[in-house]
Each structure stands twice: as C-alpha cells, then as structure tokens.
C-alpha cells in the first residue's frame, strides 16, 4: 500500500503532466482549427443561398467575391467600425433588440440580385442551435435556410441540419399581407395554425423541442433586422449606405 503523501503527489504530478501535454496540443492546433471554423461559417452562409460546395478553394473564392459583411443595428443604421466576424451571436441574442449589434451578410448573385443573409442563434433541446436565413431583396421571401446544432438527438432534433427540413423554408414569407412581421413558424402538422401556409413549415416528429427552438430563434433573431430592411426599402433608388 502506498502512503497518502505518495498518492497525493502522484495524482498531482500526473495531472500537471497531462495538463501540459493538452495545453501544448491545443495551442499547436488552434490556428488550423480556427481556420476550419471560419471556413465552415462561410460554407454555411453560402448554403443558405443554395450554393453547396465542399471544396475549400471554391468556398473561399465564391465567398470573397460575392459576400459583403456588415453590421447594422435595430434602428436601421449601419454600424461603422464593427466587424461581423468579431461578433459573437451568443452574446447578442439575449440583449434587448435595441442594444444588439446585428451582423448581416449580403450576397450578390448573378445579374446583381442581392440576398440578405441573417444569422440566427438559439437553443434546442440539448444545446445551442444556429443557422443562416437568406432573404430575397423584397425583404420578405425566404430564399434559403441553413441550420446546424451542437448536440441534438440524431434522427430526431438533429434533422434540422438535414436538407429536407431546410428546403421547406424556401419561398416562405416573414411578413404578413399588411407588411407586419409574423416570422416563419415551425409547427406540428396537427397543430391549429391561423396564418397561411406561406408562414408555416412542418416541425420534426420526435423533435418538438428542437422545432420550437428553431421557431423561437427565427422570431427572436430576424425581427431586429426589420429596421434596417425598412431603411433600405425606403431608400430604394438611392444609393445603399456604403457598408464597411
């Protein structure tokens, strides 16, 4: 039997040694990992405008050529000196809409048609869920959507990251006929729903809490952008405020 002090020392020593090994590994691999995450973000933004590619060079090239990053606020002004990359959505979504910094990605497609990609962030059942919703230049019609999650149940809540769920959003509308914001709702097929089908998509059987999370996330994250959308709409014909 080893003595108490030996046991304690042994435990301390092995903790320190493994901690050093892990710290070195983590630091050494960090640049590569961050590059991967940045690329993944770009890829996902492009997914929302229906461009699917897995090739690193293609993604970088398409993104850099066509996507403009900007930051706006709910009053509809472009915030200068703010970088969309530096904003952590997680910190923003719990603030009141007026205080949020809102990153916006503007994708210019063929023939100069613009798509406005709104990043969204919320909670599912087991952890965070997030995504990108691309709106057409009428600021109403959803062109495409992409969602991902940290740890939703495979086969159930995790289905939000699959194509069939995301494709449902194409062509849906976020504004009512009176131009009021109603969002796109994710509802159980059997639920009573008063708004038209252009505002609803079917939730996932067995993934109700995740579906509700998507529903709440869309409402919470898209609404603050309306101010900016209004200001762009009202200045139609005028030059769009030059984003940074």
């Amino acid at each position, binding site marked *: 039997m080893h003595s108490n002090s030996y*046991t304690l020392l042994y435990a301390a020593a092995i903790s320190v040694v493994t901690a050093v090994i892990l710290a070195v590994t983590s630091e050494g*691999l960090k640049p590569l990992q961050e590059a991967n995450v940045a690329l993944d973000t770009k890829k996902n933004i492009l997914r929302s405008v229906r461009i699917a590619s897995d090739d690193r060079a293609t993604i970088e090239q398409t993104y850099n050529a066509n996507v403009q990053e900007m930051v706006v606020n709910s009053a509809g002004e472009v915030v200068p000196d703010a970088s969309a990359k530096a904003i952590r959505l997680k910190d923003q979504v719990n603030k009141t809409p007026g205080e949020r910094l809102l990153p916006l990605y503007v994708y210019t497609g063929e023939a100069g048609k613009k798509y406005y990609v709104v990043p969204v962030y919320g909670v599912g059942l087991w952890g965070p869920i997030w995504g990108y919703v691309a709106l057409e230049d009428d600021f109403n019609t959803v062109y495409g959507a992409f969602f991902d999650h940290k740890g939703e149940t*495979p086969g159930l809540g995790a289905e939000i990251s699959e194509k069939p769920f995301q494709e449902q959003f194409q062509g849906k509308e976020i504004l009512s006929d009176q131009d009021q914001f109603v969002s796109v709702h994710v509802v159980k097929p059997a639920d009573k729903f008063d708004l038209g089908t252009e505002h609803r998509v079917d939730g996932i059987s067995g993934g109700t809490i995740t579906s509700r999370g998507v529903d709440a996330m869309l409402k919470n994250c898209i609404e603050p952008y309306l101010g900016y959308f209004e200001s762009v709409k009202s200045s139609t014909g005028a030059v769009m405020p030059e984003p940074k």
Partner: protein
Amino acid sequence: MSVESTSAPAVQEKKKEALFSKKNIRTLRDPLDDNNPITVQVLGICSALAVTVQVKPALIMAVGVIFVTAFSNLITSLLRNSIPNRVRIIVQLIIVATLVTIVDQVLKAYMFDVSKKLSVFVGLIITNCIVMGRLEAFALAQKPWPSFLDGVGNGVGYGIILVVVAIFRELFGAGTLMGYHVIPQWAYDHGYVNNGLMVLPPAALFVIGVYIWAQRSWNKKLVNVS
C-alpha cells in the same frame, strides 16, 4: 515499434520473449473474433449504434478508438508498478481522457467535417467500457508490449464491427459506400427505394444482432458462452 521494444522491461525476464510469440499473437487476435469486445463481451455498444450511419465516420472512429486503447494500455502498463492502488481508476481515467482529447483536437484540426459528424462520440470514447475494461483487466497486470497488442486487438475488434455495420447501413440506407453511389440509377428507376430504417439507430442494433447470430453459428467456440 521502437517505442514498444525499448519499453519492454528486460530486468525480471530471464529469457526474452519474441515480439510476436504465439502468446502475443493470440493477445492480438483473440479480440477480433473469439473475444470480440462488441459481439462477445457486448461492450461499447452505444457508440457502435451512433456512428455507423456512414462508413467514413465509422472508419475514423475506429482509428480513434484503436489509438486510445493501444496507447492507454501501453501507458498504464508502463506506470502499473507506480500507480497507487487507491487512485488507479482516476489515473486510468486521466490517461484515457488525455488521449481522447488529443484525438478530438487533431480531428478538429485536420478532419473538420468528420469531427462534426462524430460530434460528442469522440469525447464519449472516454466512457467506452472497452477502454477502461482493458486497462483494468489486462494492462494493470501485464508488460507493456502485450498490453499494447491487447489494446490494438481490442480497438481493431471494435473497429471491424463498426465498419461492417456501417457498410450495411450506408449501402441499404443511402445506396452509397464512402460517399460514392454504389446502387445504380436503374435500380431506383425500377422501383428500388433506400431503406429509411437503416439510417436510424435501431438498424445498428438489428445489424449487430444478426452479426452476433452469424458469428455464433460459424464459431463453435462461442456456443454456450455468456
């Protein structure tokens, strides 16, 4: 291999055992079939259910587990005489957790897509019963080289099942293997449909069940085991 050969303690051995003696080969080969961790010992089932939808993640997962079982066995065996008995489980856990974290970090850096697919299951290798089981049952009482072989054997035994199950699930669930379409278009044109059940976790349970059945009918040693 230089690591293992230098690490074999030669002091208490009178006659040096060959690196690939019959006994060592058995240590390596047993877990592949006769004593397979999944189908015979029925350990590590949960990750086998979860990561076998496609062949590629299953392969990567298998490599990760082989790395962890092999090196945790080796390290534990090297330390076996110094580990205080009262905290041995914690020490084993630290070793395993360190290795798993390294695997996770490396995957995130070099194979981001796969690491996203495997998500939590890489981290859950720590709790995989096979790893701790081999440490407790083998590495704590054996020399480093046999322990290393035992780790590799058990990792490969686990990996074989993973890949076999994944081949069935990907082929029948999505019509692809390693992401390439295998089932020709004319089959779909003539009414063939991918089996949606194969994509869901229960399918892995069925496939493993059938594998165990098949294995027990061809391998007579397993009749009346467990």
